[in-house]
């Protein structure tokens, strides 16, 4: 077993008075692809936001690379090496592809390496290089997702949080995307992947956790989960 890069321990998260996560614990291994599965509204995005500092847990703690993240703001999480590609991508549509990428390397620790990082991203996503002077808002869905991931990579993260990257994309683009995710992992980036596309996710994940209405319900290796009747019923019994 590898080292746990990220440990989430007994975390509660509230939005105002509404509780979104109850006593959630899990861990992400270094250099592995960890999947976080669950239906809509289960709290997967919330959990990612707690890790990247967008929301603060009211109970429990999050430990990253050995140090606890306390009162963590997104900027701090980013400079610790966590890159979060949010739901819906949230590109700067009024800025060009190149500018979006440049901003990905905004942190002083990675800014000197912007040129190399750009080359690397263009190598992974050649289409971004072709469209680099285009406004981000004019790209297609798949290209936007690639830009979002590319932008997150510019910060040279050790942990990449991906929130539903396949949402709204054509299957052929999804396949391409997942191939890239695998490649990134082979290059050394630890990945926490939140997805609703269960089949494809379990094909590439090393380990998976299942969240249901704010509570961590199941975990296991993909083969184990696929063999579990409760899991099959919840996720594979339905169409889609």
């Amino acid at each position, binding site marked *: 077993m590898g080292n746990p890069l990220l440990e989430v321990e007994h975390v509660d998260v509230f939005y105002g008075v509404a509780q979104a996560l109850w006593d959630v614990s899990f861990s992400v291994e270094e250099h592995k692809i960890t999947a976080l599965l669950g239906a809509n509204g289960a709290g997967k995005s919330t959990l990612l936001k707690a890790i990247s500092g*967008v929301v603060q847990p009211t109970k429990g703690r999050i430990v990253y690379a050995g140090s606890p993240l306390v009162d963590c703001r997104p900027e701090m999480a980013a400079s610790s090496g966590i890159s979060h590609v949010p739901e819906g991508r949230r590109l700067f549509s009024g800025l060009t592809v190149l500018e979006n990428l440049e901003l990905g390397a*905004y942190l002083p620790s990675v800014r000197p390496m912007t040129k190399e990082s750009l080359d690397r991203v263009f190598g992974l996503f050649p289409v971004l290089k072709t469209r680099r002077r285009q406004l981000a808002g004019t790209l297609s869905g798949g290209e936007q997702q690639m830009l979002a991931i590319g932008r997150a990579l510019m*910060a040279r993260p050790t942990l990449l949080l991906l929130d539903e990257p396949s949402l709204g994309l054509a299957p052929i683009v999804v396949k391409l995307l997942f191939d890239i995710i695998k490649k990134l992992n082979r290059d050394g980036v630890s990945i926490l992947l939140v997805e609703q596309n269960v089949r494809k996710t379990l094909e590439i994940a090393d380990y998976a956790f299942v969240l249901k209405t704010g509570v961590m319900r199941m975990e296991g290796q993909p083969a184990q989960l696929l063999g579990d009747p409760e899991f099959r019923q919840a996720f594979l019994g339905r169409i889609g």
Partner: protein
Amino acid sequence: MHWFSSLATFFQILVNGIFLGCMYGVAAIGLSLVFGCMQIIFLAQGAVMILAAYCVFWMVTFTPLSPFWGFLFIIPVFLGFGFVLYTGLFQRVAKTGKNPSLLLAFGLMVLLEHLMAFVFSSDYRTVTTKYASTALGLAGVSFSVNRVIVAFVACAATALVFLFLKKTILGKAVRAVSEDMGAAALLGMRPEWVSAVTFSIGISLAGVAGVATCVIFPFDPYFGFIFSLKALIAVAFGGLGSVGGVLLGGIILGVLESMTSYTISGGWADAVAYAAFLLVLIFRPEGLLGRRLGEKA
């Protein structure tokens, strides 16, 4: 209605309008920057302009310097002033929402106006320069040197801001934070710092516009509010998101006012400006060159 007596007169009025519009434009760019970072209409922009005008007035009264030095000295001073204002006041309310920020801007405006009236008295002040009565003549149109210099400075300021936003990483961060603060934070940008910078630039632009104003118009402490409104109209005309567009919007406003003033009367110039403003808001809210104010996806 009173038509133009000659083509030369028409051009004269046009040119006057363009010069007037440059001033509106500079104040308007500041306004649109502040809108980008705080999502509110910064009503105090005009009051800040007048504060700068007073600074120059007193500088000219106590030193032999020409008021045009005011441009040089106001910019850093007002950058600092803006930074202090933001970190001291607006940062605290930014989290609570837009209404408190709007009210704070309004309160600041009233406070500044009344403070200035108290300290400087409500008398009109004017600032004259060596060039006050010189004019260049060209094809029957007279270009007052004062106004030429002011217009030049306005364009230079606009160009500088444009370059900053387009070419520097901090400028790009400013644009990014204006568009999506949350996504920017995830990339490591500190929204408060970037907002403070944006706001400071907006204030220093108001300062520049103020220096321009004092050289051309007589002013009093309450003069600023009308300018805030006009700057707002200029932003509506030009649209957000485009620095050049806002300057153009200011120029269009200036020309519109100048023409109406001449053909109908000064009083109606304001009404026409407001009516045009309403029309643009209703029929082309994104302005001529930019994005919509107000509604963010």
